[in-house]
């Protein structure tokens, strides 16, 4: 019985560098990592700092790195993560500045969230505040999954794009944008898609790291839906939407994703400066003898592919 909590320790007011404490906890391993932290704080070292409130995966406070991967401490049984040396390593969430021990500065996450204007903005907002605005069960269904988001920032901490480029809105903020964009009571669809595109909606790398959401919100599907909404709103002039639409265009024309046309279509055929910037990659490819075809012969029965696009009225780059 018992195991070791291997805890990241740091106090921004005192420490230049973090250190680690290994604390023996005499508890059964079927308890959660949060139980272990609470025990350590109550019985062994009262200075250990971490956020927690509800202890039942509703408040979203206790997200942290547990053995190198992020999740809610209150939802993670020790037995599930115990390493072979009988220890569990706990660290602050990555992609955030540590404040004290497992507590991080959440400001960048909240800033991106508040930029969304995360409240309903109905068309007749000023006429009658108290009027009931009904939503059909069908329309509400679209919002059920994202309504489970507890803003624990697990997805933000796991996002590899945020880790190198903090300008990216991150999965949670885009999922929340979806929550209002798809709400039939909200009248700011176009403003909302434009705003989130300014926060680099199209910089999502499709990696599905956010599929580890402890509340099964799966922001990735919402991110795709917001991109489609942006295209529907006619916001097609950035590289992101052009990239998606030129890929659609080449598949409809040839059945294949035509690499050389996709590069030109995304950057812009007449965007000389942009093309010069991507040129080194192309030159390196060419020097290695990797020359993708300039023209592609359509696959057999390409008419069938065009029928699929036309029947579904799927958009392509014009």
């Amino acid at each position, binding site marked *: 019985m018992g195991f070791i909590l291997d805890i990241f320790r740091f106090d921004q007011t005192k420490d230049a560098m973090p250190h680690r404490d290994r604390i023996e906890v005499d508890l059964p391993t079927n308890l959660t990592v949060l139980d272990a932290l609470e025990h350590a704080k109550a019985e062994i070292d009262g200075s250990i700092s971490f956020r927690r409130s509800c202890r039942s995966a509703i408040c979203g406070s206790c997200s942290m790195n547990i053995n190198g991967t992020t999740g809610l401490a209150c939802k993670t049984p020790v037995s599930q993560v115990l390493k072979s040396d009988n220890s569990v390593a706990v660290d602050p969430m990555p992609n955030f500045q540590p404040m004290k021990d497992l507590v991080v500065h959440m400001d960048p996450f909240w800033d991106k969230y508040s930029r969304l204007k995360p409240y309903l903005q109905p068309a007749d907002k000023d006429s009658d505040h108290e009027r009931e605005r009904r939503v059909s069960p069908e329309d509400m269904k679209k919002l059920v999954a994202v309504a489970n988001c507890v803003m624990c920032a697990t997805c933000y901490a796991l996002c590899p794009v945020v880790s190198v480029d903090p300008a990216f809105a991150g999965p949670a903020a885009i999922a929340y944008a979806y929550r209002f964009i798809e709400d039939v009571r909200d009248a700011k669809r176009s403003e909302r898609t434009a705003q989130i595109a300014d926060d680099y909606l199209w910089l999502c790398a499709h990696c599905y790291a956010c599929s580890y959401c402890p509340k099964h919100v799966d922001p990735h599907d919402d991110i795709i839906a917001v991109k489609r909404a942006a295209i529907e709103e006619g916001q097609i002039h950035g590289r992101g939407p052009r*990239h998606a639409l030129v890929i*659609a265009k080449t598949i409809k024309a040839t059945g294949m994703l035509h690499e050389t046309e996709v590069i030109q279509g995304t950057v812009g055929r007449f965007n000389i400066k942009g093309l010069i910037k991507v040129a080194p990659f192309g030159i*390196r490819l060419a020097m290695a003898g990797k020359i993708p075809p300039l023209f592609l012969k359509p696959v057999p029965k390409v008419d069938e*592919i065009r029928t699929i696009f036309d029947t579904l009225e799927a958009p392509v780059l014009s």
Partner: protein
Amino acid sequence: MTTVLEAPKRQSKSAQMKKYGFFPGCVAKESCKELFSSTMLLAEKLGIELVELTAASCCGASVLNDTNKDVARVLNARTYAQAEALGLDDVITICSTCTGHMRAANKELLEDEARMGQANAILGKFGAKYEGNVVVRHLLWLLIDDIGLDRIKSMVVRPLNGLKVAPFYGCHIIRPESVNGWESSRNPHSLEDIITAIGGEAIDYAGKTRCCGFHIQLEKDGTAADMVGQNMRMAKDQGAEAVLTPCPLCHLALDGYQADSAARWGRTDLPTFHLPQLVALALGVDPSLLGMNKHIIGPGLVLQEHDLAPAHVA
């Protein structure tokens, strides 16, 4: 005592060979032709037949969903209908993105009658129908499930001599787990198992399940290169001499962008092999046929150091 010498039962070549539907994907037909050719050479070595689905379309490459919610799924249903018509329900891919997106489309079709109905209504316009029998797998899974690590090990004639290889999975072959689920997406080990079976040493590093940034290479200058640099730095710091990936998109990103990430992450210069290249090399395929000279970061020196190939062929 008489010795009964019984001639081994000979089967016709076609009966011996297990046949698979083969979906090479766009990149293996365009900028990474060496992936296509090395896959075919490996298949020959393994005694399996990969029958290319030549009339198939692009899987949607994870991007087509951004334009329309149905079109990628119906395009894939068309591909599956072709595979079924050819009697090739077992479809093999050689790209992580193809694997993930074809499996996702198949899951949606099989789990949702309305979506299957929608797809077949459109396929019906040109006389096709998808019955729902196709299973999409990656070559990596075929190697382990159908060939077996022991058999691969026994076929090795040119062991990698301890070459330190960093596995790089690529996202769409492991995530989301609800779509792939063949192995743990947080702690996968199939590539490590392959590397060990062919005589290499698998390097453990946190970047192996992270994103290569391929899909945003054109979106914003520098971000994708940083993702490459971050991952390759981790691999290099753990002592990697080369990278092995089951995905040509990861290959293009890692091979093509390490030069751009050097300013922020330091030089890494790790040659990046396609999965079938390194397995075929260990199984004795002539290295000069594997297209390793088509890489931006040439693996020649690394291979020469481990007595695996003369430097000039790669």
